[in-house]
């Protein structure tokens, strides 16, 4: 099947197998390997991207379902060399160790902050429930999301990337 998808601001048109998952399309066909896959049951969230501005697990979306839509991956967040406030906060707060869950965790955090710009600790924890991290114990991830929320509320940072 032929699909046309905007990914991180570039339009792609490709033939794909109907069964191809969006995460495999991004990685294997487009070389967008910044988005990773960590499980086969939609539990871990490592593959989280934005589809038309809302977070989805790209392992549970078929590539053909993205036809005609906009996808933003972690690779499309930084604008003109400036990191997204959530990326910056993950770095500053030591919210990543091995970094494998990080792309999905960052994409989900941005989605969470879109819905609730001023979450308390429990709201952050519940908002990230679909994304697993094995290294950090989540404490610094929670801290980073709250720190980024502060930065974004002050409006001193650029808006969220591409798809918004």
């Amino acid at each position, binding site marked *: 099947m032929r699909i046309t998808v905007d990914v991180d601001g570039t339009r792609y048109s490709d033939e794909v*197998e109907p*069964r*191809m998952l969006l995460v495999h399309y991004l*990685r*294997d066909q487009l070389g*967008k*390997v*910044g*988005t*990773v896959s*960590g*499980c*086969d*049951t939609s*539990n*871990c969230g*490592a593959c989280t991207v934005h589809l038309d501005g809302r977070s989805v697990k790209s392992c549970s979306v078929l590539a053909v379902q993205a036809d005609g839509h906009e996808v933003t*991956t*972690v*690779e499309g*967040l*930084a604008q003109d060399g400036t*990191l997204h406030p959530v*990326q910056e906060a*993950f*770095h*500053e707060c*030591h919210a*990543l*160790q*091995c*970094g*494998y*869950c*990080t*792309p999905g965790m*960052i994409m989900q955090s941005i989605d969470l902050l879109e819905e609730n710009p001023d979450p308390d*600790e*429990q709201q*952050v*924890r*519940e908002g*990230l*429930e*679909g*994304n*697993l*991290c*094995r*290294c*950090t*114990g*989540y*404490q*610094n*991830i*929670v801290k980073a999301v709250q720190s980024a929320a502060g930065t974004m509320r002050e409006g001193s940072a650029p808006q969220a990337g591409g798809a918004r």
Partner: protein
Amino acid sequence: MTAVAEPASSPAGEFGRSRARKEDAHLITGRSRWTGNLTLPGMLHMAVLRSPLAHARITGIDVSEAKSMPGVVAVYTGADLAEEQGDLPSAWPITPDMKKPPAPALAVDTVNFAGDAVAVVLARSDYEAHDALEGIDVDYEDLPVVLDLESAAAEGSELVHPDLGTNVSATWKLDSGEAGSGGDVEQAIAEAESSPDGIVVRRTLRQQRLVPAFMEPRAVVVDPNAQQATMWSSTQIPHILKLMLAMTLGIPEHKLRVIAPDVGGGFGGKLQVTPEEVLTLLTARRLGKPVKYAESRSESMQAAHHGRAQLQKLTLAAKRDGTVTGMKVELLADMGAYMRLLSPGIPVLGAFMFNGIYKIPAYHFSCSPVFTSKVPTDAYRGAGRPEATFGIERMMSELAAELGIDPLEIREKNWITHEEFPFNTVSGLTYDTGNYEAATARARELFGYDALRREQAERRERKDPVQLGIGVSTFTEMCGLAPSRVLGSLDYGAGGWEHAQVRMLPTGKVEVVTGISPHGQGHVTGFSQVVADRLGVPFDDVEIIHGDTQSAPKGLDTYGSRSLTVGGVAVAHAVATVIAKARPIAAHMMECAEDDLEFTEGRFQVRGTEKAVGITDVALAVFAAHDMPEGVEPSLDSDVTYDPENFSFPHGTHLCAVEVDTETGRVELRSYVAVDDVGRVVNPMLVEGQVHGGLAQGIAQALFEEAVYDESGTLLSGSFAEYLIPTAADLPSFTTDRTETPATSNTLGVKGVGEAGTIASTPAVVNAVLDAVRQFGVRDIDMPCTPMRVWKAIQEGAR
């Protein structure tokens, strides 16, 4: 942070500085280099057909349909590779008579666990390779399945490997009476039993099977066509892997290169030489094409090694005033179906830790590795030490409860006081330093111990359905694996040294080569700080090179909290060598005597004058080499191999409060305080991160995780839908703090932190749960302490 002893100097003030990581830039922007990201021209994809049965004879395999499927280049079975594949390495024969079955990468005539590899397909794409697995037809003849550890060890059990004649591989013993490190434990037990002033506490504790569950599933790519066959692998151990592949497959060592690019966690789970690595290498060589294998999570759960899985029969003898007089440990350790790289050595590491931080006069430890029809076990975060710490810390709390003594008080009564260091333990180690009093006092204060005890009493009094439990864990661990002579005495197949090289470049930048292999810990940042501190160069001017046997040719990799304590110390020694080499050159440049120079903050200064040259000036002068002192070579590079003289012994006091709903059995973590003493700290932020993550994993063992098999040997918890690694919503925020008692066994005073949180937290949580429900007659609850188990324990106890 409470400074307990005067920390050694940090010349440039880098120690104790929470620098954000150099590693992050590419990881937060998606420019990461996971093995699974690699694509090489002409690369084939390998898929593995795995046995659905736990124990069976292979009576026939038909691959003809698979071979004819689209995109399929080759299909191999065990029979095809039997000549080449050799045996997967097992590097730790714990006794001379240890029994060990053959361990082929691809099963040849029998499968021994559900997930054992039976055939591989090589195809143009990953989808096509997996499609073709459906075209392989295997005939199996069922064999008896052996699952329960205790019955597997019993006489007359069905056998996992009939040729061995038993499921019990070996028995390893340590007895303080025989070793001369303490008294006779049987006598201590007999005395405690016969005396009115004595007490003997017996428990059989279970360490469930766990899955390391690193977030990046394992992946391997092999390019057989480079000058050296090159393997990229998601591994913790590129150096050991290279050596083992050379030794087991007969490939000349200099014709192999192993690269560990970005590695997404390991926790011991990637401390392995895997069947999949061997198969990727063999098939790539056979076909002359690059081959990639990337496992799914389900494959990872069923085929990558598991951890823990012990049955601990424990006997603690004491006086009624709480003074411990003896400890006896009888372990059964579930090996699963094969011995992997370190399998039988893991429980043996625990032998040195069952005495914990205590002065125990008599000690006996025995351990029998036992085969079962399950995936093999091997290192998982802490590797033998969490199991041992759980044993002793649970037993100390049980003793306290039986005697009606506060669990902190009973520990204080028995622990090594800070004046008693260095202390020779009953298991034969020498603890160099420690200050259990300081860590405990700080933890007690942060936790609000006395107030929580009062609240607990009130809730008991009013029969609140939600009861409060307080758990204590005062742990230590042996880190910095390891002095080579000690490993030799334990019959381990290698040493425990580490290598470092420091290269001063002409422009004053510094390249540091290390043999450790990070996979999330932040070593690039931490080691840069060590170098910047000692060499007086800017943090950003230091590059750390690792994880590639071509650019970092020598090393023993990352596990056992050894990276900073052994690898980092090696780097510090290599820096010292650079400074020593620069000194005569600097003296020559300034026409002064070497003794007149002092080196501070990157400069050689003539004492009492303003005259100085920087180490970077010396580097440039050495590069030009126009005017070197007589007989001095034009190089500032250094090459150091450091073998530690002793282990390091981090310790800490962890306190946990849980609320147990006695009507539903649900356990809620209310607060958790961890005060760790990991010696001198290079980067507090990284240390805290290690503690947080460690706590999460240890708490997960106590409350959430277990690899469960059904009666046919099928793994029921075979994905993240059933194997419950905690989410953000399952955990509270932890309160962490440190005391700082520098190690005296290494020049940096560091002790290691990678495993501390995991080791300490499991018994703290379980002790807390029991503290809440002991009033109903409960004396033990198997982990994980799920609502069902806790509720049942209350019902049974209350009967």
